[in-house]
């Protein structure tokens, strides 16, 4: 069940990842390898362990055993904020932004965090107002995700889709090498879903970014992914291109058998 990635040096590699919660074994030795430039989708029925795998990869929780490597460096026990500084960016299943702050302030915090992470010192250390550079970067980021009109709105008043956009904007502000999206279109209407897919594709083109995503919607997966891993009961049962995975008899069994297909 190991991943046969075509790239010589995969960017993100998980080997033999095991994660138990008190009463359940969630991940039972998962291997995945994400090559640079891939859009890697993790799919699988509810309860297959997608989100847990995602948390292990991003550093929100640590694996009980097994290793996670990023560019060859062992990051298995590295806390999330340090992984972010190596080049991880992530979004959450239910978009998490700073609700009482405005859209603008949310992005300011992200961009100032990026400056701090990359060791850039502010020119006016004592100034309260964000620097001109930061304000310009905020403007650019908000334009890119289409939130410029809502920059002064408190984030809690944004629609569900806009919150997801804002979260994406904050992740982008960090200029990540690898962007991890946990169900980027969860809870969206079909139209919003199409918009989100196009936005992610556009961002990938522009920034030449590696993306890891989990997704329920097969339309989104087949529209975006270059590689797909199928997770079932805590183990990877198939990996390959979207077409390979779709034709895999075992995957068909999982999706068309006892488990309902999630759309």
């Amino acid at each position, binding site marked *: 069940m190991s991943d046969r990635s075509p790239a010589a040096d995969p960017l993100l590699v998980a080997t033999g990842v095991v994660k138990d919660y008190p009463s359940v074994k969630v991940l039972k030795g998962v291997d995945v390898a994400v090559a640079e430039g891939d859009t890697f989708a993790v799919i699988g029925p509810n309860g297959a362990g997608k989100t847990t795998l995602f948390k292990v990869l991003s550093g929100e929780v640590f694996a009980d055993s097994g290793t996670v490597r990023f560019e060859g460096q062992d990051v298995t026990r590295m806390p999330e904020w340090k992984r*972010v500084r190596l080049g991880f960016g*992530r979004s*959450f299943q239910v978009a*998490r932004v700073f*609700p009482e702050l405005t859209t603008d*302030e949310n992005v300011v*915090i*992200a961009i100032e*965090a990026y400056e701090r992470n990359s060791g850039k010192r502010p020119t006016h250390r004592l*100034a309260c107002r964000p620097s001109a550079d930061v304000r310009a970067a905020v403007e650019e980021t908000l334009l890119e995700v289409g939130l410029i009109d809502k920059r002064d709105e408190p984030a809690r008043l944004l629609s569900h889709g806009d919150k997801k956009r804002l979260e994406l904007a904050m992740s982008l502000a960090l200029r990540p090498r690898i962007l991890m999206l946990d169900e980027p279109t969860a809870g969206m209407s079909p139209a919003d879903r199409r918009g989100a897919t196009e936005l992610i594709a556009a961002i990938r083109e522009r920034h030449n970014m590696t993306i890891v995503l989990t997704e329920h919607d097969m339309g989104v997966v087949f529209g975006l992914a270059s590689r797909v891993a199928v997770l079932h009961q805590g183990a990877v049962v198939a990996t390959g291109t979207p077409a390979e995975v779709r034709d895999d008899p075992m995957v068909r069994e999982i999706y068309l058998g006892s488990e309902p297909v999630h759309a």
Partner: protein
Amino acid sequence: MTARPRGSDWRRDVAIGAIVLVVLASLPFVTNKGIVFVAGTLALHVVFGLSWNLMFGQTGLVSFGHASFFAIGGYAFAWTAKVAPGIHPLLLFAAVGAFGAFVAFLVGIIALRRSVGVYFAILTLALSQIVYLLLSYIPALGREDGFTGIRRPRLSLGFTTIDLASGENYYHFMLVMCALLVAGLWWVMHSRMGRVFKSLQQDAERAAFLGINVGAYRLSSFAIASGTTAIAGALYAPWLQLLTPEIAHWTFSARPILYTLLGGVQSFWGPAVGALIFAVLEYGTRTLHGLSEIVIGSILLLVVLAFPGGLLGGLSRLRKRMSRKPALVARPEIVR
């Protein structure tokens, strides 16, 4: 409702601060000593409340032991001034602030390691009880009788020397110091660092995924708030010229919490308003023996129930409702 560094924001806050400062500074010329004493103590309590809200409203840390730093500052100042009277008072105030921040740093390394929320609250409560007991037992600090005979120092400023013991000099000196501390807190809350603190208060996990070292910033917030309060405590020692372990008691730690709930957690001046209301209530009910607690308690209860966001929170909601009615109707999700 959030405090943000908008263009007009700092002008408004500076104006409010200046007006309050002028009013307080002129009190000795128009009122009696009793009211001046209340006002001086109020200034210290404003710093006490604002620094607690730096942790709570700005960073999302609930401390139940903030008084221990007030006490540490007071006793550290009194003891050092007694054994080494030659130290310049300004240097001593700064050193006491650094000492308070350092103690908070040590405590925070342990208390903030894995525990936030109620665990941090309980650990800080435990700290304050330890400080309280230590102060009651250490003979050099006067045990339960308190530390007596604290002198108001002479302040040499190079070109002139002010005797803080004469007249209302110490009162005015204290106002200047408190104004500086308040300005410092204002800057911390509105600076880049303040924005990071605010992000932790809103969603620490999200902040961590921006590469923010959550633990280090929580520790900074705790240390800054504690150091500031230690200086307020140090100023209190020569003000009262007597320190008792009561200032480390948990009931005193409850003060900044009450001020913040009363005045409003989201606005910068909220805890200051709370402290003012409290001081007025205390002064107004000082002759009602036994009744004073009941009266204060019921008024507090009433305010907190009527204005869940504190007085300033209630006012700002009211103003928003008056000025933005159409927007509210158009966006029903605002009404939560």
